[in-house]
């Protein structure tokens, strides 16, 4: 349970929280900063100003109401589908790995991968937008031939931590994996 100053690939501050429930079970939670009020304000203002300009030319109040609707709807959709509040990785030795990400609206999506399916956890490089980043991912076994990788499950996808953070998680994951 310690906090260093970690940042994501764009230099925004994120916090990593390692909970060790027992020797076999650890939980890592990467939580990205909350939705900044200022940003919301800015977006809202932009939309509304636009709406007012339109309204100014076309005396039509529908424009304004629609603008309000749009902002509200947009905000809801954003916090429900886009904005991820924190992502957590629960590693249970000899049982499996559970990846869950919870959105700002409280919606939570969870995926549990059994240990028998997992081949390894590695740090990997990928080209993302206009940069090349490191990311942590779980390699899944191919049931047909054991030493091939059937697919890859990337971790901490929405909050993209930097290498130092990843290495921390990676090391302790490897500890548990090596135990059993």
């Amino acid at each position: 349970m310690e906090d260093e100053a970690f940042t994501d690939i764009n230099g925004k501050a994120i916090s990593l929280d390692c909970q060790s429930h027992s020797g076999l079970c650890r939980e890592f939670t990467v939580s990205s900063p909350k939705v900044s009020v200022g940003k919301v304000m800015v977006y809202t203002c932009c939309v509304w100003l636009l709406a007012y300009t339109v309204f100014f030319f076309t005396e039509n109040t529908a424009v304004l109401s629609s603008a309000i609707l749009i902002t509200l709807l947009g905000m809801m959709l954003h916090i429900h589908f886009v904005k991820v509040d924190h992502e957590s990785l629960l590693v249970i030795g000899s049982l499996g790995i559970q990846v869950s990400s919870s959105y700002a609206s409280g919606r939570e999506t969870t995926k549990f991968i059994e240990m028998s399916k997992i081949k390894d956890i590695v740090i990997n490089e990928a080209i993302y937008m206009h940069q090349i980043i490191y990311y942590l991912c779980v390699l899944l076994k191919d049931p047909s031939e054991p030493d091939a990788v059937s697919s890859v499950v990337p971790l901490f996808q929405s909050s993209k931590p930097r290498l130092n953070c990843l290495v921390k998680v990676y090391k302790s994951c490897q500890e548990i994996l090596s135990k059993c």
Partner: protein
Amino acid sequence: MVLKIFFPQCCNRADSGLLVGRWISGHDSAVVLAVIHYPFIPGQVKQYVQQMQAKSGVELSVLGSWSLPKEGQEGMESFLRDLSTIFPQQRWLQIHREIGKTGFTCEVLNRDQNGRVVQQETKKKSKKVEEEDGEAGGDKEEQEEEEEEEKVIFVHYEQRKVMLSQLHPIQNGVPDPKTDPPSELRQMFQTVATSQPLFFMDRYDDGPLKSTHWQSEGREASIIVELLKQASVPLCLLISWLLSIWTWICNIRIFSLYPLRWLSSKLSTCVQLSYKTEHMRTLSSAKPAAGHTQFMRKANILVSFLVDVALGMLLISWLYRDNHIAMLANTLVPAADHVAKELDELLQWLMGAPAGLKMNRALDQVLGRFFLYHIHLWISYIHLMSPFIEGILWYGGLSACLGLTFALSLLSDMVALLTFHIYCFYVYGARLYCLKIYGLSSLWRLFRGKKWNVLRQRVDSCSYDLDQLFIGTLLFTVLLFLLPTTALYYLVFTLLRLVVVLFQGVLHLSVDFINSFPLFAVGLRIFRPYRLAEGVKFRVLCEEPGTALHLLMEINPLKFSTVVQMYRTPTYSCYPKDSWAALVKKLFVGELIYPWRHKTIKTE
């Protein structure tokens, strides 16, 4: 190795007794299914376990002992250990729970070959570990102890949900050799699901043994279900008999003559009919559904069929109330007339200089007259059959009692018939246009002194003779100048055609939707989310120091999207079979487009 114990939540507060369950081979994890309380006679327990095993086909066994000491009864340690000798097992679990605490502690007694009991302490409190030859050497105590503490994981699960839930992706019956051994969770789920008979012994009947496990809600519901099952059998038989007759009628030779078959393949009503027949056949098969998918499929079909019929009934009730039918009929003929008139005007407009376009007058006149004649024919045809339309509608309306889909497809057929003239126009226009386009393209190649090489599939340069060039150029010029006229006609009629096709497409889509939407599965997902499990998720229960790790296993329900695309009953899809770009290209080069789906693109 780490020992995983799947422990049913309902047994948390059970009084002390024996743990009945199963060791999952290969994963060294134990699934506790029930607790048999004191007092019991070991013989009866053994016998009971035997018969349960026989019933459920799970290798049940007595896993160990469960002690939740009430006040007064302390120090059962030795007694419990003796129990292990009564029920000879490879390993013997002793799970304690003190009243105050939430966590359990567990001892594992390993029995090696010569029957001596080897014990490993897993209590944190017990600082010293009495160790004979366990799998860990006795020399390095501390680190040994560290390891020992980690040994056991308790996974609490809700027995009922796990029993009823179906793990996805489904692998029914025989696990294919590639993926075996089936994963731990899958085995665990199977174990709980198959050991259903174990749970039918409930607390109140006075058997020799008292046990704690999930209690099935009272018998009555199940009795009713049984009765329904019994009743459904003769019904199924009846339906299947009727079906056989129907199919026999369908297979009379007259229907399999060429024009009829072709027609029936094009008429969406007939397609719908055969489709329904097929569904009924699947429904009315007397034998019970094998496997989950089969069952779901049947249920989906049944539900959607019922819904369909209900909607159809609604429609009928609307139609036959203060005769809407007559109204419809009276509106229909004038509508057709109106359409014809509109077309007439349109053609007149085209025969002038439409939108100031420069068209070749002679050709324009010819085409216009031709189409006008067609419309004339059409109108007379409509008027010929106007008296019968009401009757047709009346009987057609009856068909709605076979379901809304049926009525809809009938409607689409009617539309197709009523707009036949538009179709004709479209075909003429398209053919003419197509001809022109191809002629122009090949002549353009000649114009540039190239030619299409059929063998190499490419454009070669070639030297033509003078006369070839001359005639080619003449034709090219003629075609080029006549193109706008035909193109305009083609355009107009294609637009009309597209409107019709769009309408029919919408009808087909809705029909397909009603037929294929998995209502039952979705309902299940809404009201019993745990029934369709995508997987599981674990929560770490608040653990206090000194006990092993406690996890709560919850069921992770399937996503709606997955449910829909997994359980949607396969139909002939009537979605446009080629992409929009392809469609546009077809339109441009003047190939014909049809609303009806082709048999070849049946989507599974």
